């Protein structure tokens, strides 16, 4: 595996300020040219399949508050949580392929778990619209344009179930957002989040690393390797033809 120097904190901060398009949704929507050195990747990566521009901006703003960028490294927005969720919600999981959806739907006890008819895609779409509408009504602006303090206040109100997004319980919507953003921060980068393995580097998780046979009994010694993503690693059973002349 290629050895890479560990990024200094200064490098991380620099990457945060210049490397990752924050408001790229709006830029793209206006048809402005992409940052040249990112163009090839960005042209596919930043094309949205599920969210509209406004939803993506709200999602970016939510991700930036749930897991913020700070001196420890990039946050969920920079790591591409919005793009991750866009892919998930556009796909089978978003459509509820793992969710039992037969009625009758009725409220149960907390021990009986989720009992709403919303698929993940339906819930996130409805919830983001309700959040923006509520923010406009109360604060005069959509969620993404509020200052961080107001954004946090809305998120706390949702977390506590105090925001009224009926018929969608705001606490359940908040939990879905939080789970989705955490997934987008920590899942393999091949799903569009965890860009540059930012989530894994934060905690020191090695990713799709193959073996710890030689390390597991070196007790207390922090592992110092670089993480590996599925996209970066060579499949064990695949051989490129050119390798065999």
């Amino acid at each position, binding site marked *: 595996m290629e050895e890479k120097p560990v990024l200094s904190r200064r490098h991380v901060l620099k990457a945060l300020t210049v490397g990752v398009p924050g408001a790229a949704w709006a830029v793209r929507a206006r048809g402005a040219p992409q940052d040249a050195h990112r163009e090839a990747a960005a042209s596919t990566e930043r094309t949205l399949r599920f969210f509209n521009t406004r939803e993506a901006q709200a999602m970016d703003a939510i991700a930036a*508050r*749930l*897991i*913020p960028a*700070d001196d*420890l490294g990039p*946050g969920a927005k920079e790591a591409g949580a919005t793009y991750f969720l866009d892919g998930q919600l556009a796909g089978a*999981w978003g459509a*509820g*392929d*793992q*969710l*039992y*959806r*037969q009625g*009758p739907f009725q409220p*149960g*006890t*907390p*021990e*009986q*778990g*989720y*009992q709403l008819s919303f698929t993940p895609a339906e819930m996130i779409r409805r919830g983001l619209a309700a959040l923006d509408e509520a923010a406009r009504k109360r604060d005069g602006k959509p969620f993404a344009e509020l200052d961080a303090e107001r954004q946090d206040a809305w*998120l706390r109100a949702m*977390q506590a179930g105090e925001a009224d997004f009926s018929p969608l319980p705001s606490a359940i919507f908040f939990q879905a957002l*939080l789970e989705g953003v*955490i*997934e987008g921060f*920590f*899942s*393999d980068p091949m*799903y569009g989040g965890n860009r540059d393995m930012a989530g*894994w580097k*934060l*905690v*020191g*998780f090695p*990713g*799709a*690393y*193959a*073996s*710890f*046979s030689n*390390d*597991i*009994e070196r*007790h*207390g*010694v*922090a*592992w110092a390797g670089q993480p*590996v993503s*599925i996209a970066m*690693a*060579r*499949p*064990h*059973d695949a051989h490129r033809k050119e390798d065999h002349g």
Partner: protein
Amino acid sequence: MAEQLPPVDVAIIGGGWTGSIIGKELAAAGQRVVILERGEPRWPSPDFQGPNVHDELKYTRRHALHQNAATETYTFRNNTRQTALPMRRWQFAYPGTHLGGAGNHWSGAYYRFHPTDFNLRSHYTERYGAGIFDDDLTCQDWPVSYDELEPYFDRFDYLIGASGQAGNLKGEQQEGGNPFEPWRSRPYPNPPMKVPYAPALFGEAARSLGYHPYVQPSALATRPYVNSEGLHMSACVYCGFCSNFGCEHFAKASPQVCILPVAMKMDNFEIRTGAHVLRVELSPDKKRATGVTYVDAAGNERFQPADTVVLCAFSINNVRLLLLSGIGKPYDPETDTGVVGRNYTHQTTSGVNLFFDESVNINPFMGAGAVAVTMDDFCADNFDHGPHGFVGGGYLQIQVVSGAPIGYHPTPKGTPAWGPEWKRAVRRYYNHSASITITGSAQPTRGGYLSLDPTYQDAWGQPLLRITYDLPDNDIRMSAFLTAKGDEIGKAMKGVVRTEPGPRKRPFSATAYQSTHLTGGAAMGDDPSTSVVNRYGQVWDVPNVFVTGASLFPQNSCFNPTGTVGATAYWIVDKIKADYLRSPGPLVST
């Protein structure tokens, strides 16, 4: 109208551990066998190869190897006064699907039940008096003893390449093994697993307190191994992707690695995947099964005639098949009569979260599903229950199953669930945390049972299985006792700065994962009024139907079920081969 297929001798429902064992054994005995597996064929190569298999999102969060809740789930309620509602997504357990079943995505923690698990009611009554059992408990003795099953445990050990250090060879205590281990006729075929840091620290602390820690036995091979079927396994490399994953290394035992390649060489053995069984069909007098009706991968209904039918689906799915087929009398908790669905239990687990000083690097990703240091001092009847007033017990351990961070990013209580403080705490504690796992036995009660749901249906229009369950007071007392012991050990561990014990509380919740050890509902017994099958897994009422797996357990031990599931499968098929094939009929008279 279902299309009728050419008859077979034996139709087996489910291609997991028990179906593969029984299918292979009966095919080798000359029977024409078909296994009906609802899932897809999946093999270590190419399906589980790296790096792609190391995908937490796909396998853990999106349930790639779990039963799809969208098409078939369970309904749940805590008691009969409530209306059961469907578990719309998996949280409390991960029933498997696809070839290999839960035997694919299991962790490989590998135990035998303790001798007193098999004579629980009579043993405790003899030692402590009948009063030790709360009135609501319906625990009962198994119809077989540990000694009878020992040769079959042994056989399963050598099939799966079990790793461990024997503690008790034919009654002789062995240095370095578990002193509470039930006697075994042979050593483990492979040496114990390597020990990561957190389990080592647990072992040190437990030993300093006078307990008897040992390296947990596992179904992960620790060196190259040729098993009892002549199939090759490789050494585990501690990649940390066992639980919920297929094993890329041929190290974790599974039906695909340990049996099926041999079975599939026989012309009289067939696996039919994409075959979703609707029910076992009975003769008009209901005393004989005529075969199995299933829906094939294209949605066509088929009738597979068979002389013998063996239920080898996931534990409680066997109970559902019995109920859907009208086999055996359904249990009624109001009158306490009937048997099918009776004595359902889960596993009464709890834990103690530990947070370490930053100087202690745990490396939680260096592990395997079954790598652990465990102690049995409070298992089974290894300690005096007299002063404590409960039945059963549990093992305490630290195991290092997975550091995959979507699921594993522990923070101390009081940490916000998001924002800068959360992020700081996740970074602070990720490499400096562990948890003591406490796996407790589960006692059945009169109110805890399985039945068909009156409202909710699966994708084929059949009633879902309804689970009615809450934790008995007995188990709450047990969990309080065991969790306090765990907390004492945690506090004695080097580098621990904070412990958070979490004993179990009522009500039981279906919203938190607590193990896939769902047991009972088709109890094995000597008395047809309190059991579904006899001591050979043969249905009392329909003697050409056999049931296998954890659905046979009259109550759940603290020990993980797969060892006992494998042993009972060999025990059952041996009897079928020895006596039943020659003279089909009841193997035990009533």
